């Protein structure tokens, strides 16, 4: 959950135009807003094949041939990939390291550590905290960091393949690598490695034959095999590994290889643990009907599509985006669906005390924020993800209207 302590929660509105960059640029790209709403950044084309970062209306002095994928980390660092003289660099708050790479992508953050996928001399791995893995591989993907940011992992290719070399592939060519060290057994496929809280264990989806899927923990697969599986998660209470598994054409949930939710769902995915070890997920109790489910008990309200599941800090509530058969979007919660229908709904955000839910929505090309089903009395060209104050009484709205950037701190009671 986003930590909002120390942010400016003084009620009111701040409007900025940040016009300087526009006057000195050929074009400006999309707005990127920090979680606390105090910093806004845009990539600016300052001359042909010359780019700079525009931060709160000021163009950076550093210019590059390319700047891509700018985004703010939860602690407010501005991360982007920049390219100069055919090399790529990771820019963090407009500071770049001395070493350039063949390519960088998929920036990520955990507990203060910034990392990214890297290709150097056609070898693949990660840079973590500015340091590249000691070992790189022929290919790599599915990159991730441990929750404490101290460990990194990816799926890596450890054997070469000739053209259409189907049988070497089927013998297995992929492993999980942790901090650049390949771990455990070699599999035909490996996907979505995921760490436990202290980074001491990593679990991943594996395919051992064309037909046998399982979960491997530290590179060792469960004895149990399934028709297929989805991404595993660690149970914070027991340390067990839990993943949706498909058996007999239906989906259930398995922990450490044993079925804990009998396979009866047409779909089951995106599960999340609460601190107490409860499991929330998105399920399809029957074909074409999706719902929230907690501990194998589906909620009665269904929709054609459910996505962007969010679980409250106390673990007792959940909310998600829902899409109806009329192809309109709404918000589905543990207490039912909100009344409003929209052209788009973003992932819900819970307040620290779990009592309120805020959602960014789009209707007829105008966006606003809804709290507990009630709209803020103003709409905008664009909004960004809302946030609640630590005491859960105020909502931060970040929005654009024309050239104006607007930061609003509103009381929850203002949503009617």
């Amino acid at each position, binding site marked *: 959950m986003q930590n909002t302590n120390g942010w400016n929660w003084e009620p009111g509105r701040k409007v900025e135009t940040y016009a300087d960059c526009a006057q000195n640029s050929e074009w400006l790209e999309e707005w990127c807003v920090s979680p606390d709403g105090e910093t806004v950044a845009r990539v600016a084309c300052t001359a042909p094949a010359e780019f700079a970062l525009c931060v709160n209306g000021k163009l950076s002095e550093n210019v590059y041939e390319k700047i891509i*994928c700018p985004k703010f980390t939860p602690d407010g660092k501005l991360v982007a990939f920049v390219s100069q003289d055919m090399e790529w660099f990771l820019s963090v708050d407009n500071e770049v390291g001395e070493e350039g790479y063949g390519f960088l992508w998929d920036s990520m953050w955990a507990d203060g550590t910034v990392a990214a996928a890297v290709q150097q001399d056609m070898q693949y791995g990660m840079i973590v905290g500015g340091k590249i893995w000691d070992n790189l591989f022929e290919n790599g993907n599915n990159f991730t960091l441990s929750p404490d940011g101290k460990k990194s992992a990816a799926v890596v290719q450890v054997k070469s393949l000739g053209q259409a070399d189907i049988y070497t592939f089927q013998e297995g060519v992929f492993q999980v690598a942790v901090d650049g060290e390949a771990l455990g057994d070699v599999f035909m496929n490996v996907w979505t490695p995921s760490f436990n809280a202290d980074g001491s264990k990593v679990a991943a989806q594996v395919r051992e034959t064309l037909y046998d899927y399982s979960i491997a923990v530290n590179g060792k697969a469960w004895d149990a095999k399934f028709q297929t599986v989805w991404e595993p998660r660690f149970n914070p209470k027991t340390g067990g590994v839990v993943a949706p598994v498909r058996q007999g054409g239906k989906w259930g949930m398995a922990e450490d290889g044993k079925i804990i939710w009998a396979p009866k769902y047409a779909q089951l995915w995106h599960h999340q643990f609460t601190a107490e070890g409860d499991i929330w997920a998105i399920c399809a109790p029957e074909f074409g009907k999706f719902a929230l489910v907690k501990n194998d008990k589906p909620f009665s309200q269904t929709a054609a599509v459910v996505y962007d599941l969010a679980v409250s800090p106390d673990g007792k509530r959940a909310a998600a985006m829902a899409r109806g*058969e009329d192809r309109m979007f709404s918000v589905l919660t543990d207490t039912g669906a909100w009344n409003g229908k929209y052209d788009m709904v973003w992932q819900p955000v819970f307040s620290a005390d779990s009592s309120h839910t805020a959602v960014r929505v789009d209707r007829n090309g105008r966006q606003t924020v809804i709290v507990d089903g009630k709209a803020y009395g103003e709409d905008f060209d664009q909004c960004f993800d809302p946030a609640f104050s630590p005491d859960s009484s105020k909502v931060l709205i970040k929005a654009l209207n024309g050239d104006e950037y607007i930061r609003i701190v509103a009381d929850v009671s203002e949503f009617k």
Partner: protein
Amino acid sequence: MYNEIFDRKIEDVGLQTGIDRLTPEKIEKTVKQVLEGETGAKLKVYHDTCVRCGMCAKACHFYQSHLEPSYSPVAKIHQSIGVLIEKDGKVGPDFIYQCAQIAYTECNLCRRCVHYCPLGIDTAYMMSTMRRICHKLGVTPQYIQDTAHSHSATMNQMWVKDDEWVDSLLWQEEEARDEFPDMRIPLDVDGVDFLYSVIGPEPKFRTHLIYQAAAIFHEAGANWTMPSEPGWDNSDMAMFSGDFEMMGRLKRAHFECAQKLHVKRIVMGECGHAFRSIYDQGNRWLGWKDYPVEVVHSVEFFTELFKAGKIKMKAKHPGIATIQDPCNIIRGRGLYDHLRFLAHEVCEEIVEMAPNGEHNYCCAAGGGIINCGPPFKNVRMSGNKAKADQLKAAYDKGARTILAPCHNCHGGLEDIIHHYGIDMEIKFLGDIIYANMVKTKAVEE
């Protein structure tokens, strides 16, 4: 245990190695598992109600090309899955080779025969089930299996690595800026009108198609994005190899690319089979009745742009063109009127193939056949004399351009015009629109 009339075995290492590992017991068990566990009344009804009238024969380009009864849809069924059903899976490995060769390389799953069957039997469904059994038995042609492996390892069909994808987009963007100085291929932009998705060959060796699409969107003032992460490839050879678990994994990755970015819809490039995997098979395997994100094919999207006046042609494509109607978007999706509207908007003159529309013949590349690779190229060539005859007839009426809004059609027709010596060029809609549209934002104008 070959059927006597099956005398056209082609050597393929995937098929041969696959059957070398089989036992009759494994075949019987697997056949039963698929028939009892994954099919139901539909397959039984199709099998039981076929009266072998042969009305489907003339629907099939393989039959029309060979004029040999064993190539008729009904005969192909009764040389493969029909036998498995009747014998309850009690067949030998050699027979599975025959089944696989028929199912993967002699049926494009084009569904033309469905229109001709008085009982409405969906032969393509039966052939897909046959392929599913072959996949479960490990008897698949080498090259399509390799493509399915690529899908599983990279989420795209051409072994394109994560960085190569983004690098290709940046390269095309840079190239395009010589022509359109402020053109962008926007990466990972949240909340825009649409995500543009393509198939694996575009970043691999048809990068100009990405350039052209981006140029069209730029000229139209579109609010769009492309994803930087895997899931960008909408194609799906796992659907055709019978690996439905992988099909589901691919479609999840594709739709979640769009869901993560909260785009209002996905616009798909000019590909037919990918469209079917999105709107028909992959989405349903995942439990969605509808697709979870609105999906439109380029033929629909370009129609919108022209009707809204967002793209105007400076000149029409010169000369006479004919239209290849891709099976999955015309017969399958009903985009005939859209394609006719566009064809007349962008070409000076159109000569229709006969037959056309939902009755058009397949290119013989679709359904994964072209992905079965070089061993089976001649199967496609000899098996689609019917298409060559159609093209020659259009040529005789003056057509020199084939408008084909589908990658498989391109690959298939390219081989056919070379094999049969037909002097025609093949164009995507994007080729023609890009080359002839009014470019208000280009440096030249």
